[in-house]
């Protein structure tokens, strides 16, 4: 008796209103906005999935993903578009926001297609960062050199 009453309560009142208003989050599509300060890559485009590299681990975003805020790590973002094609972009850093209505905002400081990266330039950056670390004297200089190494390694990995 108590069970049916509480079940009925689930389907009436505020919960039902929320269900009606939810609209977009029907678990079948999500809208991606992916941009860098200099250019927009996707502006509210419906996509199937987005894989992002974040400080809390790399994860894939599907429609109806739990609302999340995460900070990006240098790495590859993979967008799986509705027509089945896959596009990869290297992001230097930024943030990702997943909202309740399944809209995703991926705001990067630099976002470039992976095929625009030059592997020899990336390897050179790694060599430079390593020598930068060797000659670093202060903690800040060492940290900056270590960041450079981390980014260079991510760039090389993205090129392969």
């Amino acid at each position, binding site marked *: 008796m108590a069970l049916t009453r509480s079940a009925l309560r689930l389907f009436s009142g505020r919960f039902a209103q929320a269900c009606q208003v939810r609209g977009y989050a029907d678990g079948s599509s999500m809208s991606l906005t992916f941009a860098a*300060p*200099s250019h927009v890559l996707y502006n509210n485009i419906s996509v199937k999935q987005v894989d992002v590299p974040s*400080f809390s681990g790399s994860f894939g975003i599907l429609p109806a993903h739990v609302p999340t805020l995460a*900070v990006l790590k*240098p790495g590859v973002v993979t967008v799986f578009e509705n027509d089945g094609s896959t596009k990869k972009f*290297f992001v*230097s*850093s*930024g943030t990702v926001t997943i909202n309740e209505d399944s809209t995703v905002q991926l705001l990067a*400081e*630099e976002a*470039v297609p992976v095929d*625009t*990266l*030059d592997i020899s*330039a*990336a390897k050179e*950056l790694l060599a430079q*960062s390593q020598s930068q670390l060797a000659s670093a004297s202060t*903690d*800040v200089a*060492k*940290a*900056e050199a*270590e*960041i*450079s190494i981390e*980014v*260079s390694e991510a*760039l090389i990995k993205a090129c392969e």
Partner: protein
Amino acid sequence: MSFWRQAGLNYIQYSAISAKLTRRALKPALRVEALKREAVNAKPTMWKDGKAVAAQKA
């Protein structure tokens, strides 16, 4: 805690270094365009007692 935060850097600084390297890893043709984005158009000048102290390097 991340090694850079322990050294006193924040994510904004991390992001700036990361973006700078990403631009330098682009193919030569695109790199030129990207490096223009790095140009800083602000030149700080320190003032003391109503006078500009020797102009700082931009």
